């Protein structure tokens, strides 16, 4: 088999995984053989990890023969030793270690030429030994108040397995660090920058909403993972073939995490209600907004399950707008106004008096939060739930100017995605990133438009995504979800 043929099948994925390393698989043999280009690449192969990677990449399990999986280098058959796939780069081995800067730092050099100085104190806080870290729970037992300030390294050696052992001066404590751990957590500017780049959102240019069948997602972890990845990357995703039953949406949400309880209850009806608490529960048009912006932890993912949308109903089309995409454009076209909205706080409020205990919530913060590198980490947008602006006089006109400009950018954006939900469809979207709107609808005589909705915490969504990613052998980080995380 030529490498070209394998390339068609999955090598594109493998290339992104293994950083340009070519792989041939001869699985027609009794013992499947995976050939690598050079001895170096196969030096660190971990069998289980490789299996899960190949499974996710090939979408079919490579059946193992009685003799197990074998890996082969040029001219030789060798058994795997150890491999940790991380961001698609295979790791090299530690060549040497040296205490520098009077013990304040440890220089580690790898055999591919990479070199980095780790701070002594950084290493001390990462010590994975049993007295510093609980093996079963992963919790740290380190007591920061008891660690001497300005701790210095006394001595450091490279062990036989290539790991690094450190001894400190002021404390009778030894730290043992695996070479993989050190290489994965180099904290140079470039490395940190590269990591952050991987979690930047990529904007959906096609305006299509990816859809998968609930039948697949419900029964296959791989399908669920694929759907969650799509939802994370694009900000929205659909499910088809969801049973048209009241409260069935609970099953969909619980597949991922616990349902958030809000003033709307657990699951809420989106229909023309007799006693609506806000405009969402009427048939009027809704401008672009996020749900429940008054919460510190705004609902992360919103689900809408279409139960009924009769043909006779006019209007009621749902629209979505990627606010991150809008802001990226806005910041280039109106940099001063963008800065104003990062600086001047707005006030949001929600007051409902209809439930057992009235809801009286408010929040004051700038619309846009940035991290230390100027990247957007969260945005709040709800022009209806506006509470009286409380900012110094000199900021008022500047604020309104910026607010209106962004308001127009949102209302007249050409990037909006439109969809008319069909009964049996569920749409899920990132409530912190995607604004949603609805055109007015007329039910006429007997026609009806009825959805049920629910929310999932962004933290729980991201957790489920990353847990499944690990299981599938995908080490890519999650795309930013807008939950005020600086990463």
């Amino acid at each position, binding site marked *: 088999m030529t490498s070209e043929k394998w390339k068609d099948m999955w090598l594109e994925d493998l290339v992104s995984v293994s950083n340009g390393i070519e792989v041939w698989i001869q699985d027609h043999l009794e013992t499947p053989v995976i050939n690598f280009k050079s001895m170096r690449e196969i030096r660190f192969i971990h069998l289980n990890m490789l299996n899960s990677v190949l499974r996710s990449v090939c979408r079919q399990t490579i059946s193992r023969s009685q003799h197990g999986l074998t890996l082969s280098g040029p001219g030789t058959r060798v058994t795997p030793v150890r491999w940790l796939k991380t961001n698609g780069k295979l790791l090299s081995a530690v060549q040497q270690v040296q205490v520098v800067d009077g013990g304040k730092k440890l220089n580690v050099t790898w055999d591919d030429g990479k070199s980095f100085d780790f701070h002594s*104190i*950084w290493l001390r*806080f*990462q010590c994975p030994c049993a007295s510093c870290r*609980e093996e*079963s*729970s*992963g*919790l*740290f037992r*380190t*007591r920061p*108040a008891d660690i001497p*300030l300005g701790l210095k390294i006394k001595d450091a050696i490279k062990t036989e397995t290539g790991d690094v052992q450190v001894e400190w001066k002021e404390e009778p404590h030894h730290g043992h660090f695996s070479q993989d751990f050190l290489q994965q957590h180099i*904290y*140079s500017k470039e490395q*940190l920058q590269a*990591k952050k780049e991987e979690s930047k959102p990529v904007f959906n240019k096609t305006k299509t909403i990816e859809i998968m069948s609930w039948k697949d997602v419900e029964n296959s972890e791989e399908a669920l993972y694929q759907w969650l990845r799509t939802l994370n990357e694009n900000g929205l995703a659909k499910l088809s073939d969801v049973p048209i039953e009241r409260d069935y949406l609970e099953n969909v949400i619980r597949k991922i995490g*616990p349902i*958030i309880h809000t003033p709307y209850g657990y699951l809420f009806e989106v229909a023309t209600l007799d006693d609506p608490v806000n*405009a969402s529960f009427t048939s009027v048009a809704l401008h672009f907004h996020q749900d429940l912006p*008054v*919460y*510190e*932890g705004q609902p992360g993912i919103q689900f809408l399950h279409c139960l009924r949308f009769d043909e006779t109903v006019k209007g009621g089309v749902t629209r979505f707008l990627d606010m991150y995409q809008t802001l990226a454009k806005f910041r280039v076209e109106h940099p001063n106004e963008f800065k104003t909205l990062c600086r001047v*706080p707005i006030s949001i*409020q929600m007051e*409902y008096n209809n439930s057992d*205990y009235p809801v*009286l*919530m408010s*929040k*004051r*913060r700038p619309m846009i939060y940035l*991290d*230390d590198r100027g990247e957007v980490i969260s945005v709040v947008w709800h*022009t209806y*739930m*506006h509470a009286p*602006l*409380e*900012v110094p*006089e000199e900021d*008022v006109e500047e604020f*309104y*100017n910026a607010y*209106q400009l962004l*308001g127009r950018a*949102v*209302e*007249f954006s050409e990037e909006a995605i439109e969809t008319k939900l069909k009964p049996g469809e569920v749409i899920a979207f990132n409530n912190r990133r995607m604004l949603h709107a609805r055109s007015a609808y007329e039910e006429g005589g007997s026609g009806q438009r009825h959805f049920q909705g629910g929310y999932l915490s962004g*933290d*729980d969504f991201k*957790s489920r995504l*990353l847990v499944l990613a690990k299981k599938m052998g995908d080490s890519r980080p999650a795309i930013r979800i807008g*939950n*005020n*995380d*600086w*990463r």
Partner: protein
Amino acid sequence: MLKCVQGRRRLLKLVSRCSSVGFTFQTGPAVPLITPQTCLFDRHLDRHQPFSSGTPVSPSANTVNIVDDGRKVEIVWNDCKTSRFHAVWLRHHCQCEECFDAEINQVLIEIDKLPLDIKATNVRITDGKVWVEWNGNHIGEFSTAFLRKHCYSGDSLTQKKASLKTSLYTKPTLASVTWTDCETDEKHIYRLLKDINDHGLAMVKAAPTTKELLTEFVPKHMTSLWDNTYGKLYDVTYMEKATNLAYTQKALQFHMDLTFYESTPGIQFLHCLKFDESLTGGETTFVDMFAVCEELRQTNPAEFKTLCSVPCTFSRDHSSRDHPVHLGIQRPIINLNREKEIIGVFWNPSVVGVQGIPEDDVADYYKAYQLFARAIKNFHTKNEVRLQPGDIVAFNNRRMAHSRNSFGVGSGHGERHFQGCYINICEYKSRLIHLSRKFGDDSAIKRVGNMDWT
């Protein structure tokens, strides 16, 4: 650090003048403080502020004028204060039916259509309300209470913030209410929630020691329990072969629970079901992190600044449990609004793993981190409580860090069993506001640490 009492008095006075936490220096023991067995609350009730259902009287407007060529409206109040409102601000906040839906509290004006160069063309005061006409084509009326409440001129914003400051609680006993009182009269729930807001923590005494009591008590009187992958209700018990430090007899250092969630749990309830007398130690201690931060701001301003600007990574990557989790968030330990007031603090050394901090910041960061840890550990004022069966301690997990002393099993098989749960911080505040309007004064609600810039 100033060690003598005189010096500390001076320090606290200094802090009080220029920070968001006011210190009230009280005589009496500071550390340790043990809650006595009997409830003192009933005896103290008479000396507390009586419950008032009246709202404070708002000053009335004497005169109203158009200034700055129609761009602003100026009001002079009967207490000689002056407010200036931009015409565009007033237009955006017009309270008429066309512009504001009072039933659902939503603004109807579309921001993209608001004329930014709008001018006030006519103003007057009639029947205690201020009438404004804009550009000769729209009229709105504003109650004087509304305008006074939302005045943003001069130092009115700074003055408003003075009432939001928290104070360090140094009394020898924790404020408490009884279980029976809570079940019979809502005003005791108000008392409980208000005490938590003022002091950071409070107790419910003499509750039954039935399991899962919290799953009824809390939703009934406050709001639903916060649901998460750790469950709505959790047990804190001692186990022979425990895998988690919390389930051992060992001490737990100061921490706030679950800081790897963006909206870290708000109010935490710990219900003591069993705590046998044969067990020595095992007290729960609380420290006011807002107060610790303010002191650090004065004693170590450079380190304080570092903790506000270099973010900390809190993470929980736990795959070997029934429901694996991979939670985490990176953000500064201390968070300020633009007036440099503390609006959020996060502290939990057990979930602080790998830090993705640039090399230039590492040395400063760890120095500040360690100093802060020492400041917390050695803080002069802590509240120590040995919970009795039937006690429920309720505390603001966004403001108070808690720790546990180690305890000895002794010769017998003593049992220590608590159950705990959380409620969302925003929902707690909402309930408190509602009860304050009913029984007290909703303008006196202090910061809760939920990252709100108010």
